[in-house]
């Protein structure tokens, strides 16, 4: 308990905010020495919004073209399938699945995330291009759900990657997912879905949390 409280973004003195924009390079210490030079050592940087109508237009466009990363990370991924069918037809909202993180803008975490999956989630999230958004499904991503006391399942997702919208339920139905998408659209249009920037600004805090649970960290510190 006490150990978990040390890492709080609201606390003063976390390294994340101070390090923004400075030239500290990532050390990639967990990679073998000969591999370190193969990977990028730059930190993610926050992106400033455009001014005025330009940003509004960009946000309108972003909100109407949500491309999902097709990575089903938990049992909730099963609720994504009906979304594609004619009954729910997510394409009418401008939502479509994409096969790789590079092409996607929305990451749906489908419920419980084991530590093993979390490693892949972090890696996929970092490979997505900004602006990027995260929808978290089910009670498991909120507080662990029925796996709250499991040895291998994380309790709250927002300590590892920024989450824009939580959709409660176990599991949420496709209708709830569509409601979540509409909420996300509202946030994007209002310029409040700033997960990617939040991640860049609190990068050290997120990284410390991730490395606390992912014990065999054998990838670059920032997977770009």
């Amino acid at each position: 308990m006490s150990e978990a409280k040390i890492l709080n973004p609201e606390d003063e003195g976390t390294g994340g905010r101070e390090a923004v924009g400075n030239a500290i390079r990532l050390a990639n210490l967990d990679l073998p020495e000969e591999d370190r030079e193969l990977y990028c050592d730059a930190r993610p940087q926050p992106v400033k919004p455009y001014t005025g109508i330009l940003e509004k237009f960009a946000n309108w466009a972003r909100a109407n073209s949500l491309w999902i990363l097709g990575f089903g990370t938990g049992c909730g991924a099963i609720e994504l399938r009906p979304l594609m069918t004619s009954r729910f037809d997510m394409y009418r909202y401008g939502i479509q699945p994409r096969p790789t993180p590079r092409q996607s803008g929305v990451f749906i975490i489908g419920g419980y995330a084991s530590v093993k999956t979390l490693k892949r989630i972090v890696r996929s999230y970092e490979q997505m291009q900004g602006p990027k958004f995260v929808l978290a499904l089910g009670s498991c991503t909120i507080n662990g759900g029925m796996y709250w006391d499991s040895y291998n399942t994380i309790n709250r997702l927002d300590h590892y990657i920024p989450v824009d919208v939580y959709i409660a339920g176990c599991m949420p139905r496709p209708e709830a997912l569509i409601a979540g998408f509409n909420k996300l659209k509202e946030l994007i249009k209002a310029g409040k879905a700033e997960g990617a920037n939040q991640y860049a600004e609190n990068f050290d805090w997120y990284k410390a949390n991730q490395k606390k649970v992912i014990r065999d960290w054998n990838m670059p510190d920032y997977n770009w």
Partner: protein
Amino acid sequence: MANSKNVNDRVTLEHSRLSGTVEEIERRFELSDAYVQRDSLGFVTVQRKDAVSLITHLRDYLGFSHLVMVTVVDVIEKGLLRLVYLLHNYSIGADLGVQVEIPRGEAPASAAEVSGSENGNGSKSIRPGHNGDTLLASGLTSGAEAAKPAYTEMDSIHHLWAQAATYQRELKEMYGINFPGSPRVDEEFALEGWKDVPPMRRDFDTLAYSESTFFPRPGRKTHDPVEYMKKNMYPDEPDGGTGA
């Protein structure tokens, strides 16, 4: 029940499909226990030293050609682990579980040192190749010292069924039972980088581990089901609806 056959009637070993099998193996092996749960499912308990011979005999002479699963029960009260090899015989259509009790074993003293030194120098080798090499090297000499501590040992049966190696890999990770010689038994199975007590052992406190590791979100409430039902559903009944 109108049905003439009462499902609660216990089938006795003598009248089950497994009677012949048990009779046969009793002549060759010393069984400390033998019983049937139903007509097509029985269990025998055998000494650790006889286990692989018995399983081989069952497979090669008595038609138990299919390994259904290998699992283990942590009987912490008696300080032992009860391995269960479940075998299936297609010609008689019955399962026979071979139970073997082995000591739980003590946590090896080296376990803490291994993790401590890895944290200390900061440059551990994490690539699978590196890890595998060191494991192989140590495995040849001492056997017990691997990345994850093995508390106890059992003979491998991967030579009888190749798929047993997968079960044995999992048992090593989840219960700390080593199976020397089993293919890839030292590699990680589902957990990555686990350094604690094997999580399926009953002395592993999963709640405490979760609370100290996974940032619990405050505000979670848990009700004791019995108390909750007494209070909210049966407030007028003295026994709280339990019927006790």
